[in-house]
């Protein structure tokens, strides 16, 4: 388990930030700190307020209530052009009437660096995004991935305190997107600038971020490291938004020796420590979650697990390296998903086959 306490100095402080558009509340009081030099993600489904929050930090909109401070300075009334932030837009917003070098140099005009220094900084920024020598290219002659890099260079050349990225990879195809995820991460480590990424792609957020704020309906549901979000989600929404999660109905039956005793439908009784109830616990009807990779199929009679239960294969989806099974367990409505690595000698079961499922108590998460 990683330590989730933010390290270093807070660069951006959000204090009960609210934003209303007419009568619609886009943000309902968001608080939190974003640390100097961290890769921070705002993750959530469309309409959760993540882009609104990014635009408030950038200064394109003002909060209805609450305050935003960057580097200790309150940002109320400070327009976008005077904030130490730069943005990579979802559409990239490359100026179509300028070439690549002019695009990158756009914001340097005000700094009056002189022709040579400007050219040097532009070339340096283009080098950072692997576009050295592309300066004379026309904007419309660029591919999607190149436009994205130009947008990145144009923002980085300003040496901002914070780089804001509004779904920068959503327009790229899968392969390029995966490559850029790794590259962005590497770039962020190299320049040491605070990155704030808005994304609806949970995998992208997990891969790239130091910390993630998962947002639903204008509120932060959980703010934690990727590992904590995956292993200790506070509630059902977070658990189902990040990765695949099996949900089981459960009942809290008691408490002894500091452990919470549960009766889980389809799996049976189990006792878990309070850390596995990160969202607190409700006494009555509640839910537990178990990740597919935490459940194990026991293929031979000699294999043993801490807890075992028998079921039947409903569906098997073969992915090459993995097989995903849907299992019907006694006393449950929904089939449970189990993922198994296809190691040598391990059979692939067919629908209708009986199966024994093993699980351990450390895999059970009690959800609020």
């Amino acid at each position, binding site marked *: 388990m990683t330590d989730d306490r933010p390290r270093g100095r807070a660069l951006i402080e959000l204090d009960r930030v609210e934003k209303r558009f007419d009568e619609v509340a886009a943000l309902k009081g968001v608080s939190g700190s974003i640390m100097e030099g961290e890769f921070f993600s705002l993750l959530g489904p469309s309409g959760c307020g993540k882009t609104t929050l990014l635009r408030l930090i950038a200064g394109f909109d003002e909060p209805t209530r609450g305050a935003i401070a960057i580097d200790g300075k309150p940002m109320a009334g400070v327009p976008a052009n005077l904030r130490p932030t730069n943005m990579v837009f979802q559409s990239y*917003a490359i100026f*179509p009437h300028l070439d690549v070098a002019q695009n990158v140099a756009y914001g340097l005009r005000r700094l009056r660096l002189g022709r040579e220094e400007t050219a040097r900084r532009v070339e340096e920024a283009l080098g950072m995004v692997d576009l050295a020598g592309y300066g004379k290219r026309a904007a419309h002659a660029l591919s999607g991935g190149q436009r994205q890099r130009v947008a990145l260079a144009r*923002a980085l050349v300003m040496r901002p305190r914070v780089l804001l990225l509004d779904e920068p990879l959503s327009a790229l195809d899968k392969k390029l997107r995966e490559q850029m995820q790794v590259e962005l991460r590497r770039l962020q480590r190299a320049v040491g600038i605070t990155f704030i990424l808005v994304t609806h792609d949970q995998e992208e957020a997990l891969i790239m971020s130091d910390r993630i704020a998962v947002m639903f309906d204008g509120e932060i549901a959980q703010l934690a490291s990727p590992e904590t979000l995956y292993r200790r989600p506070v509630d059902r929404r977070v658990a189902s938004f990040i990765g695949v999660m099996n949900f089981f109905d459960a009942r809290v039956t008691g408490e002894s020796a500091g452990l919470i005793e549960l009766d889980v439908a389809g799996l049976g009784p189990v006792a878990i420590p309070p850390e596995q109830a990160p969202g607190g616990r409700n006494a009555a009807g509640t839910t537990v979650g178990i990740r597919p990779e935490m459940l194990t199929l026991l293929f031979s009679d000699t294999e043993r697990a801490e807890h075992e239960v028998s079921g039947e294969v409903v569906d098997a989806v073969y992915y090459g390296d993995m097989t995903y099974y849907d299992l019907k367990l006694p006393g449950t409505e929904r089939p449970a998903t189990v993922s198994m690595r296809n190691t040598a000698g391990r059979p692939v079961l067919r629908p209708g086959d009986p199966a024994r499922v093993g699980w351990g108590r450390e895999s059970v998460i009690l959800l609020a």
Partner: protein
Amino acid sequence: MARARGQGWLKGYAIGYLVFLYAPVFLLPIFAFNDSAIIAFPLSGFTTANFQQLWATDAMHGALVNSLQVAVAAAVISTLLGICAARASARYEFPGRRAIIGFIMLPLVLPEIIVAVALLVVLVQLGFALSLWTVVLGHVLVCTPFSIAILSSAFQNMDRSLEEASQDLGEGRMMTFLRVTLPLVTPGIVASLLIGFTISLDEFIIAFFLTGTEPTLPVYIWSQLRFTAKLPGVMALGCLLLVLSLALLCAAEYFRRRSARQTGSSGGYL
């Protein structure tokens, strides 16, 4: 088969339509170079005398200068008004936006004679003396809708995040307008200027009603038509105007398409 026959009929219709529309226009240059005072076939011979005569007519020169002045003024004023209206309608939501734009576009469908007579009555009642400026006023009224139509698409097609990107990179509103907005809509502005100029140059009815002692070119041509002897000269003049109008329209369309391409829209016709 039925479909093929239907297409054949359509093709014939289209050709007939184009001939009806443009054949008279092509007669203009033919008779302009004809060596006869009578506008009729058969042609009697080739001459450029009509053009030489035109060159020597001072009254025509005066009318041409008047027309150019009016056209430039009308094009510039209607484009400036168009920039304001198009920018406002593309960027801001305000009560009555559609109604206001609708009213501005009304002269497009209003018969010009009604606009002309109404303007004449109002101007006379207000005690304005008729002059080239009153013609400019009338022309601005009919040119502005065209300017707005062209400029609206230029403004609307522009990705809003381009202006935000400029602000994000440190420029204020004024510099953003000068460095991003204006260059991107410049082709639209040029197209609007050219269209306004062409419309004003060709316009007759409003000019006829609102002009004072100085006629514009179309009004001058109309006055010459009463004298049969002047007809070949008018033909020559018409021929020149035709070439000029076509050139301007082509230039306007070129710039309009470039604007559409630059702002990322598909283009198409006006």
